[in-house]
């Protein structure tokens, strides 16, 4: 009990008070305590991710082995986990032709580059012109960075290099360093990012449009006076925020005494005054709530999140 409850409570209290006061003490060791503490937290959280990953594998693996309801989804999660892990730590890709000279036949080289970039195979004169213009821009080390975006595997890069060299250019295979491969384009990691993560995330976020519609349909009802005010202001903001609202009430702007009824004007007013006032009130309440909760935690009154009563 002492080690599991009392010691953590003492640590929380001591660290809480020190952190609070360090905000007012610029002198070392207090001055940089907040930055260090944040970094310590990040390090602990990073290691804790291993626990999370193991738990995820156990949870999803169990589902697959026992063929529970929806096990194919669990299998997809396990495969995605190992695939991303491999592309992060084992196989990186990111090979590209590093062209140092376009040689005596630059137009043929530009055409080739345009063909490599345009994967759909329809290379127009405009594409070649774009390459021609872009090719004049060297990267930070003087190299031509254009093809960074076009090639992933070493074999593909070598093939393009051979073709470019045949056309008279001087090219060799370059590669992104380990570490920068998670930040660069056309690595296997970025392929996972653009091909899986991006569309899936966008799909989930796009669901909001549908859910907003169904939730509004169900919940915005004229139940009482307050609900009616909410409903009317909601409708005014929804229409005033979009060009359609401005278009529908554009005629009011020609009549001075009616110009206030232009929907974007009403929307802006609702947004900036009643809405900002409400938001401020809620934020002050939340701020006080955070102070209160933090104090309770520091004083040890509240320790159930550490497994206490």
């Amino acid at each position, binding site marked *: 009990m002492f080690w599991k409850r009392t010691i953590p409570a003492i640590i929380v209290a001591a660290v809480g008070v020190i952190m609070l006061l360090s905000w007012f003490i610029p002198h070392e060791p207090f001055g940089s305590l*907040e*930055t260090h503490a*944040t*970094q310590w937290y*990040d390090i602990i959280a990073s290691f804790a991710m291993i626990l999370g990953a193991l738990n995820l594998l156990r949870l999803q693996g169990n589902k697959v082995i026992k063929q529970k309801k929806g096990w194919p989804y669990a299998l997809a999660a396990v495969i995605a986990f190992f695939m991303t892990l491999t592309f992060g730590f084992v196989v990186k890709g990111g090979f590209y032709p590093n062209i140092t000279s376009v040689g005596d036949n630059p137009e043929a080289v530009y055409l080739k580059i345009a063909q490599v970039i345009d994967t759909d195979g329809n290379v127009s004169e405009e594409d070649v012109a*774009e390459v021609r*213009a*872009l090719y*004049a*821009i060297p*990267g*930070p*080390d003087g190299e031509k960075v254009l093809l960074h*975006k076009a090639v992933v595997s070493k074999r593909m890069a070598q093939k393009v290099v051979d073709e470019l060299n045949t056309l008279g250019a001087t090219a060799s295979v370059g590669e992104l*360093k380990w570490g*920068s491969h998670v*930040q660069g*384009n056309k690595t296997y990691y*970025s392929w996972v*990012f*653009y091909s899986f*993560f*991006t*569309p899936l*995330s*966008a799909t*989930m*976020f*796009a669901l909001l*449009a*549908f859910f907003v*519609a*169904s939730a*509004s*349909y*169900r919940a*915005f*009802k*004229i139940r009482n006076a307050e609900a009616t005010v909410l*409903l009317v202001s*909601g*409708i005014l903001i*929804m*229409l005033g*925020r*979009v*060009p*359609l*609202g*401005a*278009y529908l009430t554009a005629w009011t702007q020609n009549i001075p005494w009616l110009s206030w009824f232009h929907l*974007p004007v009403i*929307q*802006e007013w609702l*947004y*900036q005054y009643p*809405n*900002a006032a409400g*938001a401020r009130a809620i*934020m002050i309440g939340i701020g006080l709530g955070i102070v209160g909760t933090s104090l309770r935690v520091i004083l040890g009154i509240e320790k159930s999140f550490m497994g206490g009563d």
Partner: protein
Amino acid sequence: MAKNRSKAYTNLSNNFKDILEKFVNFLAKLDGLDRRIIFLIIGLVVLFPLLVPLGLPIETTQLTEDAFYAIDELPTDAKVLVSFEYGPSTKPEIHPMAISVLRHLFSKGNKVVVMCLWPDGLFMANEALDLVANKEFGLKYGVDYVNLGYRPGNEAIIKGITKSFKANFSIDSKGTNITEIPIMHDVQTAKDVDFIFSLSAGYPGAIEWVLYAGDPLQVPVSSGNTSIQVNQLLPYVKSGQMRGIVAGMPGAAEYETMVIRKLEENIGPITDHARTLLPNFKERRNATKFMDAQSIAHLVIVLFIILGNISFLVKRKKQKKY
């Protein structure tokens, strides 16, 4: 004859009553309308304007204008820090404003230092810079702009760069030492930039920039956000801690329009190269294009709300009756 006519009237009246009752019952049932029908209708009405654009005119609002003019009034040699704190999920809303803000800055000749507090923000920054700085403006990396990349640590990174960029970003996203990047020679701390623009979809984001950099260093801050975040940010705008907000897709469309208007009407400083890009800017107006779809979607949601209320009132009246 008169009797027959009276009977006919009674029948007609009864028929009308039946139809009315059926209609009332139908309206009452609408209250529990299957949400999949709502989803289907929303999907269709969003799709339609994307296929057949309506070309509704964009009207600018004060919040976006404040952000636009705060940037527009910066001197041409000003250095601006643009931070990318969004990912693929919010890309449709925030990426168009990232592109517009970069176009605006580069068209004035401002230097841009880009950094990311979200890991996926780096991919967004790479994409935006590749289009605007590289393809459109043909600017020199390291001299006109730099991408410092992503660093983990959230607000600790913001606090860190108020003291030293070098301590937090020893190398940029390409692995080049920061001391070898010309644009960074004059930018030692966040105090050395003239403006901070945060493209943010959550935490860490605009609020952290205001609290840890804007306020302590007195560097003006503005932000491009998702629509829903505006509630939380408005108090900071009203208190002068932020210079306007570009809010969601409508804000992005307004900013796009203002950048085009600036070039069309030749307002303020504009580089010669930027003038040649005007047709390109006009053609690639992603946010403006999507505003037609958003307009129709909002209208349909409003119609749904009205329908839902009619149904609710009819149902309540029926319940009272019994």
